[in-house]
């Protein structure tokens, strides 16, 4: 699966554990020190809301703005490892370069262990595992298009209203998987920013999550993470073609 590819296309792997209890910012701030070894940088996450009210005679508009500290973002010095403490969730993420599931999962476990000991929160209400992939498809200099269908099995089948290539597309499907615990949301689309010259970059985003009753036992959370990962891998493999697999295994020279 993803871990077995020479160049897995993972741009960001994310695991989020959500709970019903909410912790205030000041308390989260106290926890931050315990994560400093892995995440030396921290930034406040500010939430901002604005309400508009119109008087009955429509002559006056009242605007109130609310600004508050919602959580703390912890980062490694290369900004690739991230821990997000919000009032009601803990999120561990790893952006590219991907370090593999085993190492990533260990980091999730470590973060959750520290956090649950400090916060005394054990009951999880939602688990989400999300992988955002970017597939960089090369094309020749004299061509401006490439056939995405050769790489993905999930692509808009649109009437040929033009002989020109599709400029933009984005598609999302959402459904329960065959394992009823899990819901999947899968999105593909052309990347807004195209990072490489003479390439078409496609984003392939798989989000697996459950809100069904989750046992309070610590070990169960990690069994569920592995289960979610299996569902994610199944979807990943179903949505790509052998040509895409070859791309991920190509011994391409890096600079």
């Amino acid at each position, binding site marked *: 699966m993803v871990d077995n590819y020479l*160049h897995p*296309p993972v*741009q*960001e792997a*994310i695991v*989020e554990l*959500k709970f019903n209890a909410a912790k205030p910012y000041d308390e989260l701030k106290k926890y931050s020190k315990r994560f400093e070894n892995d995440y*030396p*940088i*921290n*930034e*406040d*996450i*500010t*939430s*901002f*809301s604005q309400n508009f009210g119109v008087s009955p005679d429509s002559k006056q508009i009242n605007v109130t703005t609310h600004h508050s500290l919602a959580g703390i*973002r912890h980062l490694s*010095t*290369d*900004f*690739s490892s*991230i821990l*997000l403490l*919000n009032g009601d969730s803990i*999120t561990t*993420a790893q*952006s*590219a*370069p991907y370090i593999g599931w085993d190492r990533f999962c260990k980091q999730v476990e470590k973060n959750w262990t520290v956090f649950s000991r400090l916060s005394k929160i054990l009951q999880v209400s939602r688990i*989400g*595992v*999300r992988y*955002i992939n*970017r597939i*960089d498809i090369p094309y020749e*200099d004299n061509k401006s298009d490439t056939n995405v269908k050769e790489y993905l099995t999930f692509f808009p089948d649109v009437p040929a209203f033009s002989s020109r290539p599709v400029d933009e597309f*984005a598609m*999302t499907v959402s459904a329960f998987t065959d394992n009823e615990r899990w819901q999947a*949301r899968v*999105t593909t*689309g052309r*990347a*807004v*920013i*195209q*990072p*490489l*010259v*003479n390439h078409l*970059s496609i*984003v392939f*985003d798989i*989000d*697996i*999550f459950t809100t069904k009753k989750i046992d309070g036992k610590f070990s169960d959370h990690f069994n569920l993470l592995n289960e979610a990962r299996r569902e994610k891998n199944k979807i990943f493999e179903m949505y790509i073609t052998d040509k895409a697999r070859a791309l991920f295994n190509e011994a*391409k*020279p*890096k*600079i």
Partner: protein
Amino acid sequence: MKLNRKFNHSTAGPHSESGAKAEGIFIPSRVGSIGESTSSSGGLSYFRKSQLGINRSNIAQSSEGIGTNPYNYGHNSGETYTNQTENSLMPSFGSVVENDETSARLYRQLYSSLRAAKIQMNEYSNHIDSEWRLGFFRQIENLLHFDSWDPDDNPTSAESFRTFLRLVCYLKAAKRPGLSVTFDGSLVATWRTPNEALSVYCSPNDRIKWTYREATNNQGSQSLAGKCVLKDLPNQLKAILSIMPFEKWAFEFKG
């Protein structure tokens, strides 16, 4: 409601100014001052928010919340860490003089610039090897170090870094260039041989200016310069290939 910043599409396109034009040599404010290297050698773009109409509350906490990836559906604004300047966001990134608003603002700008550079570099980790990537991190930390920055200069823009990364991937620049910044915040990559220097000025949206200088026998120098969009750069350089074979600069560009 979270503050989101929309990122512009930065592909080559309507800015093409093909055809080499002789121009004066551009003198950046910090020419080749750091990290000249002899060694050779990184959520979701991704879509425009409006493209998908996704209700974020239904999605596992993504990099939007984590804020690492400027390809994202959205990206938390710089305000998230403005109140943390005095605590030093980035260890060993220099110290801010307390109660000095000018210094604090500069510190935040440099931190944002460094953050953008590293995050964008991580996105290229499937195309740039780790030695090159880590070497770039060292260079950029030196370049943007708070304690040595002239407050009159503009920190490098994220869009300039994007052009630089597209440049080195496009040319397959195995040899890491020296880095400098112009007064207006454009990153300058300089490759050198004992008697020659090729400098490429990376402006947003793939806009490139380049200069070539060669020392002559009488202790003077001769130079050439041009400007173009990134995609046209190899052709411009090839036009004077007799004096600038790509191999000399360790560009593995094959055309």
